[in-house]
């Protein structure tokens, strides 16, 4: 019994349920919001430390042995993702206290937030493909509700696209699960991995692979499947935007990593190129989309797409180092992108708009905000020694090592375009003087979503922003321990037998080792890495 | 109502005592129970009228099934043979039923009888509007409906 594997899912579910029970009491909900998120953060830390020690941890829910029950599995990748979920959850919990209006609180903002986190955590931990679908739906419906909370026109219009296109992805996912079960007769991912390797009809395996690729590609907002994201992410309350930007698409990316390293590894020979160019086009179209925008959150939204390209590039290169780089990119992006959205919220609070044209003067007025933005923005652009640089560097190195020169070159160029957008925001929002026509009163009256005075709570907005900016910086400074973790992730993902053994027991993995052609490739890459001190 | 419950309990007791848990045995137990209730009726206030209601109920059931089958056949005939013999129309049927329960019961029974369909009750609850398929002999129809209402109300009064 390893409770730490299940608690990151169960705790937010519980706090969500309790929060719902107290839906009449606003203070109670706010208390549960923070308490629940602190608890989630603590268990995520617990899980991370435990996985650091043991490598893999599993729990067979309901005591039913795998593959018959549902197994929750934490490997290093899951643990890192869970830890990030805990961090972002806590940041959001605090930030939301300052920004959430009474109406939103009354109609379930906090339970929705908890359950969204539960869905995310469930997706990161589950070892069962249908259970993954269920957590996707939990996450999705929570996000639907959060997206529409407040009921403004833009929200509704954005939500229609968000809902429809995500449902399309869900149905593709579900259909693939159905076909998968019809083909191999099991739902446990480790078991599927074993059976897939033996599957005689390789055409079906490939079809399943592409179906999962498209389904998760939509969830991850990869080219040309990303349309829902720029259409909707800038419409909800900013804390919600930030939560979405940080975590949601990453679940799609995580799933791609999980499924294509564990289950469909044998199809990578064919799919690698498709994925690689998909990743490149994702980066390029995303970053160009941002270049065309003049609204704070729209720029950030398009950049999510662009950054997703980097992560998928890591998977497409398909070496341990590239995987490590991809996951580094995920980690970095979760922290930084969340923070940029949070900052956009503060600037909105201060100047009442998201239009770059109408903003200005914050460099002088809010130096600490400027510092936080500067760190986050330049981290996003991959400027050293911030977190984004290391993500980019590892990918570039892996790309050159894999001799994918053109794709890697484009990835580098995209970094410059990212800088373009970030500098655009910096110049307009921070450096430029506030335009005459948009002069706000001498002391801006900060208001929450409900228009009430919320001046004392501004620190609750600053706290997460400062902490996250610090994290981006610290990731850079302490890149070594993080890189060790990332390398472990790369190794774990490229040797799926470890995962299979952890879930199904040692006998199964002996079988798996015989069937793992990629292990040989992974070793080859390892050898090459060892040559370079 | 008390009577019906007692009857059921006695039936169940019979089933328990005899140890034969079949539907038929329950029926047997119910019959014995009914006889027992018939015997003690004068002594127990709560049972007043119950034994008498049972034969009335069975009689009503027979009447209703007869109507149901008869009218169904008539409708069937008209549906299956091409020229329409029917003369449909909406008529107002004055109600003797007073309580909501009674009105509902009567209306539903009328709806269940083929050839008639309860449309609505007037706001003052005096009249039930009925759509009837065969208004060739309206008086006969009205008479039949009133009889059904009468028999049904008897069960409750």
């Amino acid at each position: 019994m390893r409770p730490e594997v299940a608690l990151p899912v169960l705790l937010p579910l519980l706090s969500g349920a309790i929060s719902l029970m107290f839906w009449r009491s606003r203070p109670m909900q706010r208390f549960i919001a923070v308490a629940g998120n602190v608890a989630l953060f603590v268990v995520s830390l617990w899980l991370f430390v435990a996985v650091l020690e043991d490598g893999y941890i599993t729990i067979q829910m309901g005591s039913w042995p795998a593959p018959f029950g549902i197994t929750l599995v934490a490997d290093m990748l899951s643990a890192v993702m869970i830890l990030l979920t805990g961090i972002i959850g806590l940041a959001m919990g605090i930030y939301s206290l300052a920004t959430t209006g009474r109406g939103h609180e009354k109609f379930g903002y906090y339970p929705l937030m908890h359950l969204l986190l539960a869905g995310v955590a469930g997706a990161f931990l589950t070892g069962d493909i249908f259970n993954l679908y269920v957590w996707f739906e939990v996450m999705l419906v929570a996000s639907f509700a959060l997206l529409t909370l407040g009921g403004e026109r833009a929200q509704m219009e954005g939500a229609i696209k968000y809902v429809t296109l995500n449902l399309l992805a869900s149905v593709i996912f579900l259909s693939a699960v159905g076909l998968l079960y019809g083909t191999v007769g099991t739902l446990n991912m480790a078991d599927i991995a074993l059976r897939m390797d033996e599957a005689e009809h390789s055409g079906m395996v490939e079809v399943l692979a592409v179906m999962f690729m498209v389904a998760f590609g939509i969830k991850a907002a990869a080219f040309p499947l990303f349309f829902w994201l720029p259409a909707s992410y800038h419409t909800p309350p900013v804390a919600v935007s930030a939560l979405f930007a940080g975590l949601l698409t990453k679940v799609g990316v995580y799933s791609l990593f999980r499924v294509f390293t564990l289950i469909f590894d044998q199809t990578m020979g064919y799919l690698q190129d498709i994925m690689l160019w998909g990743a490149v086009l994702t980066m390029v179209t995303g970053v160009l989309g941002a270049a065309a925008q003049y609204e704070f959150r729209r720029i950030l939204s398009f950049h999510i797409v662009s950054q997703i390209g980097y992560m998928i590039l890591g998977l497409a290169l398909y070496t341990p180092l590239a995987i490590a780089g991809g996951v580094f990119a995920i980690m970095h992006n979760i922290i930084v992108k969340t923070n940029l959205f949070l900052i956009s919220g503060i600037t909105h609070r201060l100047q009442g708009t998201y239009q770059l044209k109408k903003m200005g003067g914050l460099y002088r007025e809010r130096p600490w905000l400027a510092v936080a933005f500067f760190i986050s923005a330049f981290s996003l652009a991959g400027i050293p020694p911030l977190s984004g640089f290391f993500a980019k560097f590892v990918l570039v190195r892996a790309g050159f090592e894999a001799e994918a020169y053109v794709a890697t070159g484009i990835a580098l160029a995209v970094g410059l375009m990212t800088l373009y957008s970030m500098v655009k925001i910096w110049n307009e929002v921070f450096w430029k003087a506030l335009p005459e026509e948009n002069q706000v009163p001498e002391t801006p009256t900060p208001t929450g979503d409900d228009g009430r005075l919320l001046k004392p709570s501004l620190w609750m907005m600053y706290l997460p922003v400062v902490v996250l900016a610090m994290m981006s910086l610290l990731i850079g400074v302490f890149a070594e321990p993080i890189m060790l973790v990332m390398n472990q992730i790369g190794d774990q993902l490229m040797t799926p037998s470890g995962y299979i053994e952890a879930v199904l027991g040692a006998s199964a993995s002996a079988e798996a080792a015989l069937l793992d052609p990629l292990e040989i490739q992974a070793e080859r890459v390892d050898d090459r890495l060892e040559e370079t001190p | 109502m008390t009577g019906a419950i007692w009857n059921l309990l006695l039936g169940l007791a019979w089933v328990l005592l005899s140890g034969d848990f079949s539907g038929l045995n329950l029926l047997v137990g119910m019959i014995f129970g009914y006889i027992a209730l018939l015997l003690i009726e004068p002594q127990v206030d709560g049972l007043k009228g119950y034994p008498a209601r049972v034969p009335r109920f069975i009689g009503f059931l027979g009447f209703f099934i007869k109507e149901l089958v008869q009218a169904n056949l008539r409708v069937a005939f008209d549906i299956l043979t091409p020229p329409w013999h029917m003369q449909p129309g909406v008529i107002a049927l004055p109600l003797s039923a007073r309580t909501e329960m009674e009105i509902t019961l009567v209306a539903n029974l009328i709806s269940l009888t083929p050839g008639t369909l309860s449309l609505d009750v007037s706001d003052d609850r005096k009249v039930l509007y009925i759509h009837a398929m065969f208004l060739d002999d309206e008086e006969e129809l009205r008479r039949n409906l009133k009889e059904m209402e009468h028999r049904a109300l008897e069960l409750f009064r």
Partner: protein
Amino acid sequence: MEPLMALVIGLLYATAIFMMLRRSIVKLVIGLLLLSNAANLLIFTTAGMTRGAPPLIPEGMMQPLGGVADPLPQAVVLTAIVIAFGVLAFAVVLIRRAYEIVKADDLDKMKDTDT
């Protein structure tokens, strides 16, 4: 049976997609409805269909008498049905609100957030 079902499910997917490609939001939602039904039937069919042998164990027994239909896809589909219901209920109300705000049953009039 399965080939026939496969054919009809194919048709269901086709109709669903056709509806989703319409400009009317109501048609869109009906398309989503059809689509989720198609997926549920797909799971049910692909696993194989069995007549007259529900996965129930007679009272007092430890195993079913003969072979029974595969219960797992049934449970999975049940879960999927309920999830689809929740999601669709949300979508249905969403289009209602969207219509209320935009005052048109036309998706082409709802593109402010993109452009």
